[in-house]
């Protein structure tokens, strides 16, 4: 598994280099190379996770490196889906470095010896973890689209930074991509929370136990619910929607990592 992870990291880093070079030099060959490397990285990453799964007999999210790796895998996969669905090349400039960075941290973290607690053996857990992580990956991409939106918006408003103006796509495309990501992220987050509740019921005998992670997940869910509601009713779009998507991802990051470091709770053992 470690070899596969190392290969994955190298491929993601090369992909990042390809995308960054593309951003500055604007050669479509570089973008194609970046994409091909990302696909290769994603495949070896999938293999690494599959090996982990087979080795342990449960979904490999039992310590922080594994969890991070799974999150990185979800972001890479979500970006690839988005790329082939909308042909949005430029988002790779954001997605590839994010994935590479997340994965670069993985081997640096200490691994806790893996015992297999009973808590892992359930279909509901697999569904819960997968839905939540892919949902979070979609939110990460929404934040990326939001960031690019703000750069382009600023370039058009100030009439100065021609660098971004030339390289970034239209505001409309960035806005609708961000929106699509949030819709997907919200659907999966909802699904992830429901399966989590069912799993909690089956394992601890109650749906809700005021675990900090649960509370913060509910806060994230409400936040995105408000964001979507605002968009559909009063038209929160464009700049405001971009800022909200970035802030939302911050809330989500806190739910994902911050809660584990600063608070106690039954999710803690997943990220020891």
């Amino acid at each position, binding site marked *: 598994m470690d070899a596969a992870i190392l290969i994955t990291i190298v491929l993601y880093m090369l992909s990042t280099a390809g995308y960054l070079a593309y951003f500055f030099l604007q050669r479509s060959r570089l973008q194609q190379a970046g994409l091909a490397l990302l696909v290769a990285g994603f495949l070896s990453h999938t293999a690494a996770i599959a090996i982990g799964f087979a080795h342990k007999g449960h979904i490999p999210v039992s310590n922080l490196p594994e969890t991070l790796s799974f999150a990185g895998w979800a972001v890479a996969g979500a970006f690839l889906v988005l790329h082939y669905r909308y042909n949005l090349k430029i988002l790779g400039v954001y997605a590839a470095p994010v994935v590479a960075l997340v994965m670069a941290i993985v081997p640096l973290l200490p691994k806790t010896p893996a015992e297999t607690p009973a808590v892992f053996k359930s279909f509901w857990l697999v569904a819960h973890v997968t839905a939540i992580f892919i949902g979070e990956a979609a939110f990460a991409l929404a934040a990326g689209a939001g960031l690019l939106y703000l750069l382009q918006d600023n370039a058009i408003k100030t009439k100065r930074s021609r660098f971004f103006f030339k390289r970034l*796509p239209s505001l409309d495309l960035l806005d609708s991509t961000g929106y699509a990501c949030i819709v997907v992220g919200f659907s999966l987050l909802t699904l992830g929370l429901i399966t989590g509740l069912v799993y909690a019921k089956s394992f601890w005998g109650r749906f809700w136990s005021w675990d900090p992670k649960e509370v913060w997940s509910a806060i994230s869910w409400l936040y995105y619910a408000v964001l979507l509601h605002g968009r559909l009713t009063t*038209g929160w779009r*464009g700049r405001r929607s971009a800022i909200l998507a970035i802030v939302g991802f911050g809330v989500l990051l806190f739910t994902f990592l911050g809660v584990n470091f600063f608070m106690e709770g039954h999710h803690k053992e997943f990220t020891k």
Partner: protein
Amino acid sequence: MHDILLIGINHKTAPVELRECLGFAKERTDGAIGALRRLPGVCESLLYSTCNRVELLLVSEDKRASAEAAKAFIAEFNQIPLARFESALYLHENEHAARHLFRVASSLDSMIVGEPQILGQIKDAYRQASAAKTTGVILNRLLHRTFFVAKRIRTETGIGGRAVSISYAAVELARKIFGALDGKRVLLIGAGEMAELAVEHLLRHPVAETFVANRTFENGLALAARFNGRAIRFEEIGEHLKRVDIVISSTGAPGLVITREEVRTVARARKNRPLFFIDIAVPRDIDPEINRLDNAYVYDIDDLKGVIEENIEDRQKEAVKGERIIDEAVVRFREWHESLDVVPTIVSLRQKLDAMAETEIRRTLHGNALPPESAQALARMMAAFINKVLHEPTVFLKHEGMQANKALYLDAVRKLFKLDE
């Protein structure tokens, strides 16, 4: 050897007052290229005349006489003394002429680098000249190379890439905001000529609807009819701001026509959809403060000019890549052109036959050594045979009487024996 001559004036060497005196109107070009073809020493001719340049392209066997005669011809044709424009004329020969033509056709020599019209104008001129049969093997080859080079530069560099007119710059900006422009609604305020110029390209896209607001409703009606749009009254502008996506304003009004407050209040009704203002009026019609509202963008005439200037700089950077492509093409054309001389052609023909003879002898002998006397006899026989074969073609090509068609025959010989590979 036949020389290629290019004689002309352009926007860099002559002011417009002079250029307009030297133009060749399209109807009169036929007569002019025919007359040029009959000048002393000239065997091929072509000319193109645009508002920025007049250039004659000649193939001549006596370049001095032809150049003088051509200058005199321009003066006579336009009825203007040679002394008035001679200092503005430039004369390029052979590879310099080819380079100049490549640069002109690729729009590297244009006033606005990368503008696409010039290539079409040269194509027309070539079509006209070949219909009048004033072009021959050299100009045919040169012009085909020119079109090839120009096309290559257009596809391989970004020379024509970015907007360099107000109208195109407006479209480019609108695309960066809205993506596709179909289904967008446009409001024109003011029915002046500037408004028409600015929307010219925008309205070529299938926009959903165009509204025209003008102080004089009748003028608005007339303009709206031209664009398949609808005329509205000036007082209705506020109401229409709720529905349109792009506003182009060009009134002669002394004060603001649309204020920040008006735009701010319609934002909610618009569900914050982006609104793009193009203000080409001086003094300005649109409150520049609107640009600070979310999802509203204001570009005035100076902003658009700024965009254009930067785009022109970009094009000039791309033009450097174009020059490299031209360098390469000039070298290849020169090689071909120089090969169109009798001596090098006969030399390479002889080399080719020698090589063939040597190969065939080797193959026949299969590596068996002949006695030295027999080998020498065989070599002498082959040399004599080659001399006999080459005798008539050499006499023919060197014959004085066929000067006019020399390039044609040399080109044919080179092709028949594949001497250029």
